[in-house]
Every structure is written in structure tokens, then in C-alpha cells.
């Protein structure tokens, strides 16, 4: 039994453009949490919902991605997901006058909310609309943000800076009158550089020597350390269509406290696993492909890369923050 229970109702918001993989990320989160527990039994997190529609959407997304290899587009039938990430954190506190430390288990519930599953509201041309305003308020009221950066969209469209700058300006305006506002947004931000399995993204990381072997990974997946993920983001922004994205890290670090931002190179579906060797293959990393119906399917098993990590990190930060 946990010693205490805390509920962070303000929760976590997700930001990301259309096609940046927010839904896929969430669809991969249940399996990512299970794999996390598989590697570390102390890390048992589960995702659930009190809201029926969100619960059904969660089940649909999980089954679509992990059982059918399909991408969870069906989730677009609702506008909001309202999920709860539920797990335990080990906490410590001072005990007694002698300054001793007492450790205890705390059950944590954090709301994970996705208000804009399609990413449409993220566009600046949606400014002023009521539903966009709801998104801004939702982000402003949350304490953690999962920021999804899509390198392929940036390469093709180059609108990450414009979208993000507009959104942050609006969120900033929303919280600026708060008595605790110290000039920067109070959120913890997990920046996710998505689609690491995509060849162009993978090769960029490889050419920058940001890929490190992970001797503990059961399938031999390489990893990008958190400190290198920011470099990867900046490099990918440099080759963006507009070039404006190059200052995206600076933009984020201007609006948020830099020490509250962490960077992750992620892949919701993970790297392709060679069917014969059952191992990662550096010559064939992409785990998705398109079929005649126009659908995009997953090629092999879903082994998410850095999907649970940013979420759990945010949960920990929110729990620590009380």
C-alpha cells in the first residue's frame, strides 16, 4: 500500500502540429509503460480514464497500434482525451529535528489531456476562435507540456517556429496576470523530437554522432542521450524549409525556464526489428510503410523509443512540485 496519494489535476498538455504523431505517441504509451515495467519492475505505471469516451479511445488506439499495426486515426472522432497516468513514486522527506530522511511511497495520479488531437488548432490562423482559446487555456492551466516536434513536417513545411511562437505568446498572455508569474511560463516541458526511426532523421542523428549504443537494450536499439537530443532538434530545424526553426530551442528556453525543459529523441513505433535476426538493423530502421489503401501501417513489433520517459519525467516533476 502506498503511504500517500497525490493527484495533480492540472496535468499534462500536448502540443504538436498535424501529423506530428501525438495520437500515435499516446497509442504507444500503454505498451511503452509495460516495456518500462518489464525492464524495471519498480516502474509500474498505468493509463486509464474516468471518462467513458476517453477510455474507449484509449482502448481503440492501443489495439490499433499494437495488435493491428495500424495508426490510431480512429481517435479523431473525439476532440479531447482525458486520461490519468497512475503509478508510484518513491519520495523522501525530512523527519524529526535531527534532520533525518524518511522515504515513502507515494501513489501519483496525473491527468494527461489532449485537447487538439488533429493538431489543427495549433495553427496560427486559428487564433481568435473559441476552440483555439480553449486550447490556450488548457495549456496555460496545465503544469507539464509534451511538445511534439515533427522533423519531417519541418523539412517539408518549416512551420514549427511560427506555430510555436504564436501559441506560446497566447499562453504567456493567459498567465501573465497570475500573481506567481515570474516572467516565464511555469511549465515543465518535455520536447520530443519524433520519428527517430525515419531514415532522414536517423541518418542526421548518425551523421552528428548522436547515436550511442545501448548495451542494455534487448533488441540492440541505439539511443540519443537527452543532452544530445537538443543538438538533434537544432540540426533538424536548420534543414527545415523556412530555416526559422533553427532558433526553436531558444524560443522555448525564452518562454520557459530552461532548467525545466528536457529533450528526447523519440519514436512511437520504435525502430524496425529485423525479422530474421530479431535485432535492430542500422540499414533498415523505419518501422512504417504505406499500402495500396493509403493506410500507413507498422512493419514490425511496436517497441516505443522514449515514449514513457518524457511522460514519467513530467509526472515526477509535477509530483515534486506538489
Amino acid at each position, binding site marked *: 500500500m502506498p503511504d500517500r496519494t497525490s493527484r495533480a489535476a492540472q496535468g499534462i498538455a500536448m502540443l504538436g502540429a498535424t501529423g506530428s504523431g501525438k495520437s500515435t505517441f499516446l497509442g504507444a504509451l500503454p505498451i511503452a509503460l509495460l516495456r518500462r515495467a518489464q525492464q524495471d519492475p519498480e516502474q509500474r505505471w498505468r493509463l486509464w480514464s474516468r471518462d467513458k469516451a476517453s477510455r474507449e479511445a484509449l482502448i481503440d488506439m492501443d489495439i490499433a497500434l499494437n495488435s493491428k*499495426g495500424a495508426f490510431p486515426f480512429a481517435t479523431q472522432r473525439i476532440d479531447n482525451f482525458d486520461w490519468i497516468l497512475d503509478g508510484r513514486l518513491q519520495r523522501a522527506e525530512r523527519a524529526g529535528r535531527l534532520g533525518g530522511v524518511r522515504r515513502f511511497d507515494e501513489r501519483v495520479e496525473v491527468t494527461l489531456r489532449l485537447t487538439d488531437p488533429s493538431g489543427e488548432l495549433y495553427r496560427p490562423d486559428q487564433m481568435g476562435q473559441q476552440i483555439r482559446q480553449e486550447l490556450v487555456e488548457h495549456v496555460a492551466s496545465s503544469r507539464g507540456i509534451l511538445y511534439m516536434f515533427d522533423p519531417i513536417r519541418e523539412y517539408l513545411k518549416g512551420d514549427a517556429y511560427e506555430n510555436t511562437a504564436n501559441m506560446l505568446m497566447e499562453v504567456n498572455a493567459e498567465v501573465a496576470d497570475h500573481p506567481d508569474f515570474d516572467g516565464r511560463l511555469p511549465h515543465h516541458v518535455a520536447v520530443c523530437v519524433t520519428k527517430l526511426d525515419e*531514415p*532522414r532523421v*536517423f*541518418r542526421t542523428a548518425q551523421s552528428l554522432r548522436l547515436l550511442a549504443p545501448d548495451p542494455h537494450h534487448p533488441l540492440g536499439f541505439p539511443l540519443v542521450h537527452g543532452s544530445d537530443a537538443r543538438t538533434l532538434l537544432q540540426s533538424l530545424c536548420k534543414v527545415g524549409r523556412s530555416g526559422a526553426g533553427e532558433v526553436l530551442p531558444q524560443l522555448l528556453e525564452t518562454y520557459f525556464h530552461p532548467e525545466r525543459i528536457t529533450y528526447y529523441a523519440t519514436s512511437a513505433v520504435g525502430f524496425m526489428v*529485423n*525479422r*530474421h535476426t530479431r535485432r535492430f538493423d*542500422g*540499414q*533498415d*530502421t*523505419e518501422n512504417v*510503410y*504505406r*499500402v*495500396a*489503401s493509403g493506410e500507413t*501501417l*507498422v*512493419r*514490425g*513489433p511496436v517497441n516505443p523509443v522514449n515514449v514513457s520517459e518524457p511522460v514519467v519525467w513530467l509526472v515526477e516533476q509535477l509530483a515534486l512540485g506538489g
Partner: protein
Amino acid sequence: MSGAEDEVLSALSGALAGLAGGDRFTAAEFGRDGAVIVRVYRDEHGTPQPEEPRPETRAAALRSAAAFYRDLGPAFIVRTADALPDQLSRLLDDPPPVPVYHCRTPLKELIKAAIRTSPLVLGYELAVLTRQPDGRVELTSRPLFPVGAETGHEVSFPVRCEAAHGDGTAFAVVTREPRPDIPPRDRNLRPVQLQQAVVTPGSYQLTARLDRPGRVTFHGVPGLLDPLPGPAAALRAAWEQRRLSIPERVDRAGPVHLVCLIELSGGDERLRGRIEWLAKLISEAESTTRRLFVSVLGYGPHSVAWSVDEEPYRLAAWLSPGQVAEQALRGLVDRVAHEHEYLEAAQLECALEGLARNLPDCPGRPVLVTAGGRPPHPPGMDTETGLIPCPDRVDWAPQVDRISSLGTTFGALRDQRYRGLSWQALGRDATATVDDAVDLADFAARLGLRETARPVPFPFAG
């Protein structure tokens, strides 16, 4: 035949037997209507040839007995009527200095009969070609009938005909110039008779029969036309024309191995189109004179997902006759595409690798024709195309090089929307898009599939 005719024939045979070089003998027929005077000589082939003297010579000779026997010098006279014109009777008044045979058969018929049965004085040969070890072709002859051969003599032997001009293959009876000072094989050949036949290249058992001096009948070669008519000059001209058209070399057309690589993916309609073009191409290739082997390999996409079974490329025919390969090709329409099939590439690289491994052991000059659209899977991750790599990491380019090193010619029948380096290499010698009209004759010619041997006007000694 009466005894009188036998006497005349005997006299004629004797005269013919004694006829040599530029000699002539003359015989005369005295009949109710006048005189028939025939001179017989041997032509360059030794064939006895009858001729009549010029009218003025004849008229002068018939003026008196003295002129007749002096100027014409007949060997004998054949009297075919009891009552003769006065002019002829006067020539017989004094006992004639030459034999006079009483016979009802006209002299010309008797001469013809005597010539028909006279033996050859020069051997007859058939003009044939021989191939020298260095590939050069030489005109020579093969004996037909030796000196002394008579009517009815038959000989049989094999000959081999190659593709010829429109006139066909010439079967020419020749004699060699009687020059004792020259070795027999260096003596000029002179045509006695020339016959033509448009025949399918191949070997034939030829039978030659001597009908008479100057006339040979051939059997065993279909479609032989009658001997060329006309004067000797026309015969010599025809002979010269054919002799001059003998190619310096005749490199035997070697066998061809036509390999059809066909992409099975891309939809039924496309597949049927590819099959039709390739079937027509096989027919084009078969219409030539060389031996043809045909192989057919069908290929589709690799499975790029765990949920889809890998379907390896399919060997439908290997070194088969054209018709068998065409049937196998048409049997490829039964493929059912998986709904989760990869659309962007096909396992062309693996089919090429299989070919590169097996082609060196195959007979025939390879001709590789690829009918398809999708590019091969790359050997590794390709950020330019985004194509998923071949699961066996096969690179198409070295396979093409390996196949090319065998002297292969490459043709591509590709979908219009696909281009790229792989299709450039695979269509190096001939490219057509299956969506457009394809000039298959031209396509086949570019690949050397319609390459015919140089026309050869005479048969080869078999």
C-alpha cells in the same frame, strides 16, 4: 529402233567418242524435202552440242559434190527417202566417199539420242562452300559425276543450307577448267547448270541424277526451281552474280538465351500487358534462324512487414523452347496481391542476383528483357528515395555488371511513370514503355534477337 537406226547411232557414238577439244564432226540427212546438215562440237564442259552451218556455207556446199565433201567433210550421210531432190541425188551419183545409211528417223533425233547416252568427258561437280578454320568462306566444289559417267548415274550426299538472299540457295553444277598445268583445286569453276531453292536453313540429303550431259536433276531439297533458262552468257552472268555475293566470312549464328524478367505486381491489367509484350517478343526471337532458349522469372515486392509472408521470385521457365516459355509466361496471371503489399519497390535486385549466379552456366548469348515498373529495393537505407531496403541487402547494380560481363544485351519494357538509374541500366540497349505502342521488331533488332546470318548463296558441304 531398227537396225538402220542402230547403225547410225553407233556411228554417231563413235564420232562423239572421238570428238575432243575444238574438234567437230558433221553429218548430213538427205530427205525428200532437202538436206539437213548438223555439225557437232563439244562445249567448254565437254557436252556435245549440235549446230547447223550458216546458210551461205550450206548453199555453197550443196552446189557440187566436190564442194560438199570438201567443205563440209561429213562423217556420214543418212538418207531418209528413196526419192531425193535432184540437187541431192547429184551428190550421191558417184559413189560417195562416206557411209550412207538408209534410215527413216530424222538425223536431229538420232543425234539427240546419241548425245543423251554419251559419257561425260569432264567430271561434273556441285559448287559448295567450305568454312576455313579462321571463319573465312571458300567456294569450292564437291564431285557429282566422274568422267565416263552416263545418263542415270546417281549420287547422294548431305549439304547444309544457311539463310540466303531472296533468290534462295543456288545449286550449281560446274566443271573445272581442263588445265593440266594447274592443280585441280585451283582450276576455275564454270557453270553447267544453275538451280535455286528458297529453303529453310538446315541440313539436307541431296540426290543428284545425271539426265544427260548438260542436265542434272536434284532431289531432296524442297522448292527447287527449274534450271535457269537462257543462253550460256546469261547462265555465266547469274553464276558470277552469286559468286560475288559470297560473304568473306560466315560466323555461325550462335544460340540465344532470352531471359524475361517480369514484375508480377502493379495490377492485373499491367501484368497482362507485360505478358503480351513479352510473348510477342519471344515470337519475334523465334522467327530467326538461330537456336533460342527462353527463361522466365516473375518477381513481386519483398514483404516489408512481419504480417506479410515473403514471396520469393518465381522461376516459371528455364532454358525452355519458346513455346513452352510462352505458356509458362501466360500462367503467371494467377498471382493474388496481398492487401498489405509494399508498393514502392520490387525484388528485382534479388531476381537479378539469381540470374547473375546461374547465367554463366547457360548456353547461348544472354539477352535480358525486364518488363516492370517499380524500382529494385536498395541494398541499404536510402534517404533519397525512402525505399525500404532489400532484406538480403542485395544491390542491383553489381548484379547488372555481372550479367553484363557475360556479353548480355539489355532491354526494358517499363511502365511509363518509372525511370531512374536501374531502368536506364536494364534498358541499356533497348527501352520501350508498355503504355505506348512498342515497335517490337525494332526492339528485338536492337537486342540482336532478329540478327540473321549473312546471306550465303551456295550450300555448304555437309
